């Protein structure tokens, strides 16, 4: 019986184990080993072992630190905004509201569009004579060089990112809200709890698994922000939008230093791992 159960467990797991083993593990181990080499993809035969040299270089590399700071700012800025926004939208649209389907669909629509397309559209909106500056002008303000001013470039990309992803996480929260049994609300209402108390003591704790999922997934995604920067600013102006993944892409494919790029990738990997574990600990304790 136990053996049969174990067999079925692995049968259930097999699709994952196979695809992970072939398409997941190999590229990771390969690129991880590159992080200890001086590796030029145009001349693989000329690779040389440098031990921890690439990692040591990263710690001395100004641009790398700058990219970490930018990435951190992006993540710390977008995740609370996206999570809170998605949660509030889900709360608002979970109730019986005429036309809620239209609202749900409307908020979700940006997430069906590819990030490349979104970045292109927003690049157009942020242009010096684009829609956003036209709006400012209409209200009597001067125009802003959104993507050209080192002070506004990163916040501009962050705002776009929140816009693009909030609807998707709203949907996840909506799904989570549905799994909360109505009886729990009714019970707490009988106890005399107000609307806000119900949200605090019933909704938020019971949504913890969904919140955890949303926050962790968003962290993993945000710390690897790339497409937005690739399409809109290419790291500029003055490295104000140089994110870590964009930097390692530049190091690997423009400077042909794939070994160093891999080392940066695995430093970032450790960071993502630490953040995710911290979030899981923190949010699980709250639940």
């Amino acid at each position: 019986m136990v053996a049969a159960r174990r067999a079925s467990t692995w049968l259930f797991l097999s699709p994952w184990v196979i695809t992970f083993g072939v398409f997941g593990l190999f590229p990771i181990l390969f690129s991880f080993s590159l992080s200890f080499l001086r590796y030029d993809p145009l001349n693989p035969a000329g690779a040389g072992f440098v031990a921890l040299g690439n990692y040591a270089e990263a710690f001395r590399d100004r641009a790398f630190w700058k990219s970490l700071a930018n990435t951190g700012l992006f993540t710390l800025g977008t995740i609370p905004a996206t999570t809170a926004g998605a949660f509030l939208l889900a709360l608002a649209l979970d109730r019986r509201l005429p036309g809620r389907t239209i609202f749900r669909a409307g908020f979700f629509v940006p997430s069906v569009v590819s990030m490349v397309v979104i970045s292109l559209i927003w690049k157009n909106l942020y242009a010096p004579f684009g829609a956003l500056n036209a709006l400012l002008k209409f209200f009597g303000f001067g125009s802003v060089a959104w993507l050209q001013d080192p002070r506004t470039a990163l916040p501009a990309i962050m705002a776009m990112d929140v816009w693009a992803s909030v609807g998707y996480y709203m949907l996840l929260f909506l799904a989570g809200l549905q799994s909360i049994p109505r009886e729990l609300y009714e019970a707490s209402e009988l106890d005399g709890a107000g609307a806000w108390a119900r949200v605090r003591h019933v909704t938020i704790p019971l949504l913890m698994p969904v919140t955890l999922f949303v926050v962790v997934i968003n962290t993993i995604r945000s710390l690897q922000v790339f497409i937005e920067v690739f399409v809109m600013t290419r790291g500029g102006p003055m490295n104000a939008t140089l994110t870590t993944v964009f930097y390692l892409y530049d190091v690997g494919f423009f400077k042909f230093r794939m070994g160093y790029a891999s080392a940066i990738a695995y430093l970032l990997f450790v960071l993502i791992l630490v953040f995710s574990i911290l979030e899981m600990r923190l949010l699980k304790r709250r639940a």
Partner: protein
Amino acid sequence: MKRFRRAALYAGLAALLAASLYPLVWMFVIALRVPGDGGWRPSLEHFVSVWRSGPFDRYFLNSVWVAAWVVGANMLLASMVGYALARRSFRGRRVLVLGVLATLMVPRQVTMIPVYLLFAKMHWIDTYAALIVPFAVDAFNVFLMSQYIQTIPEELEDAARVDGAGDFAVFFRVVLPLARPALAVVAINTFLTNWNSFLYPLILTHSESMRTLPVGLALYAQGEHSVDWGPLMAGSALATIPILLVFLVFQRYIIEGITRGALKG
């Protein structure tokens, strides 16, 4: 008071809705206008020129074919795995979970060359397999399913077991139907990512007959330093319209399916 709050809520939501839709409307505006005398006039010119720039019907079919396989595979396989993860304890669980989480955490920019090397050795470059098989079980979906399955009361499964159902029967007859909301999310999520996926299809295909829609569109309207906004936005709209249609047609199932909840269904 209550009426006022409701009106305020509506006004707020409506403003947000406008902000949510405006950029996409703008995309269509740019795509649908051409310079006329002194101003703009509406025209389908940009769409025509994009469509003529390559065999887009083929690109479209490729995208549909690949997305259908990847979505189907994920709905089935990711929920199988998610189920095992949620319900079973097994040796090596931690290692496996960490390993798969790692695939999400390592930037693709450094695994791209190893992936290419692997596929070249397997002679999978320029095949549908290269676009489907590696994406058949997405880690994100696995965790989503396992997260959701954890919220399903285990007693329901036990009841089925008492009735003499085997492991797979329990999975297919009890778990899957109850996990429908999460399956819907998996389906949309997979379809969206796959439909919009650009980098891998670009790197892993060579011939025109294997290109997917995003790859075909990227070849047009963007030079080294120049951007033709009209055709570019028309191309972006072309890539977006099918997915919008899918969403609008199925949104009842997608959103209402999620909101109805499976526990009562």
